């Protein structure tokens, strides 16, 4: 059996760290989306999505990154993606996410990148 999906949000200082585990597909993406929505509803704008334990992501999961990032950036924040391992990098690369999102090796690095620029490296 594949590892079960889970999503967990930790508020760490001024950051919301959303930790994904297992597979994000059309079945589980709504739970990821709900986590991002809750963080935003709670006023969080500095969002880090930790993918270290992510084993799979399909377009339904990528869509969550797409749907919220403008709103967050408009308010001076960002959604940063960290901990992507080789196994799950493929769809991000294929679709060109790497020029539009800030990818970081780990959560600490991601936190350090906030405030440096607007998020898109502009």
């Amino acid at each position, binding site marked *: 059996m*594949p590892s079960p999906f889970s999503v967990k949000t930790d508020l760490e200082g001024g950051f919301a760290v959303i930790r994904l585990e297992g*597979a994000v*597909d*059309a*079945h589980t993406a709504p739970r990821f*989306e709900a986590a991002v929505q809750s963080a935003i509803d709670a006023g969080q704008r500095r969002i880090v999505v930790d993918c270290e334990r992510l084993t*799979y992501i*399909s*377009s*339904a999961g*990528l*869509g*969550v990154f*797409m*749907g*919220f*990032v*403008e*709103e967050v950036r408009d308010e001076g924040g960002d959604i940063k993606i960290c901990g992507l391992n080789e*196994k799950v990098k*493929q*769809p991000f690369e*294929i*679709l*060109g*996410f790497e020029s*539009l999102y800030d990818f970081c090796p780990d959560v600490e690095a991601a936190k350090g990148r906030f405030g440096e620029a607007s998020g898109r490296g502009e």
Partner: protein
Amino acid sequence: MERVERRFMLQVPSSTENLALIREFVGSTAQQAGLDAREAAGLEMAVDEACANVIEHAYGHDVSKEVVVRVTLDGETLSIDIEDTGRGFDPGAIDQEELEQLINKRKTGGLGMRLMTKLMDEVRYEIEPGKKNALHMTKRLRKQT
């Protein structure tokens, strides 16, 4: 014909709950076909996207419908066939906006068919609305010499 063609079929209720099983099924055939880990992951994703479309768009999450995935291996190709009897659509009319545009419009979808096309060597739809909509995808196998 040096070797027997190997045929695999999986049929499951039309629910996203079964996408994980569909990926395992396809992954297992990929392994038998000798694909490497990256190629197998890509194949699993292409089929996941195609089946998610059937579940969501063709059958509107009606669990009484069934999703059928066929995999055929010959020495040279891994072929995928997925049919639905849903309302059909015009694949050529689906516009393929740039990711940046989709993000600006705060879209959360529209990437599935693009992934399928990039991951597979061939993606072909045959749409006969009201009768059947067939998706045929192939992946070339490297010669095992």
